[in-house]
């Protein structure tokens, strides 16, 4: 099968709607297809990656620990839109530290998260073959 560039665009908060959870389900299944995968978190989507989520009070499953497994699925291009983070008074310190191990460099641990401006992001999006928006 041909290799294509897949981008998953996450624009919504994690628990207000089911989109975030069902987006992550597609990403995990899609990882088995050996495609070039990128994830974008923008708008309220940046809240999906915040540290220390506690969902007992709303009776919903906290699926945020799953993000830390993405590196093992070779999903290691995670773009955060800088403007979305700033508008919400957040910094990278508020987000999970997501990493992957680079097989070509003796399994060196590298950051999966890249902070990008809105302008840089538009170029990344334009470079994709398939954009799935959630």
């Amino acid at each position, binding site marked *: 099968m041909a290799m294509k560039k897949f981008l998953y665009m996450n624009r919504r908060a994690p628990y207000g709607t*089911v989109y975030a959870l069902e987006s992550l*389900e*597609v990403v995990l299944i*899609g990882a088995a297809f050996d495609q070039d995968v990128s994830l974008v978190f923008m708008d309220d989507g940046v809240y999906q990656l915040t540290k220390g989520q506690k969902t007992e009070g709303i009776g919903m499953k906290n699926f945020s620990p799953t993000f830390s497994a993405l590196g093992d699925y070779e999903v290691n291009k995670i773009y955060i839109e800088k403007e979305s983070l700033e508008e919400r008074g957040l910094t990278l310190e508020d987000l999970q530290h997501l990493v992957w191990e680079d097989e070509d460099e003796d399994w060196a641990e590298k950051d999966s998260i890249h902070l990008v401006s809105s302008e840089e992001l538009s170029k990344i999006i334009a470079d994709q073959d398939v954009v*799935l928006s*959630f």
Partner: protein
Amino acid sequence: MKLSIQINEGPYQHQAADSAYQFTKAALAKGHEIFRVFFYHDGVNTGTRLAIPPQDDRNITNLWTELQKEHELDLVICIAAAQRRGLLDEDEAKRQGKDANNIAEGFRISGLGQLIEAGIEADRLVVFGD
């Protein structure tokens, strides 16, 4: 052009469900190929045969069933999303020990891999949603 369609919103709740149908119909009329239509999130509710919209309104499920018959479309309902929302075919109903199924004619239930494949195989994946 070879197109795949993804529908993320439920019928009657959101125009995305209607727009996706109108777009698919128009694309077929123009001679384009539809590789697959994939129903996700509340979009899976399009595939129930138990919905009874008012008689003077459109029946979105029936519209898809007719279009499927005419063009042999591959209408796929995501199994993970369908299980959450109570959409079952005969096999799934048996496997899960449920007393009924509700899938409409012309639809089939399958996995998310079908969506990824739809993205790989088509020239364009067109997503209808919010």
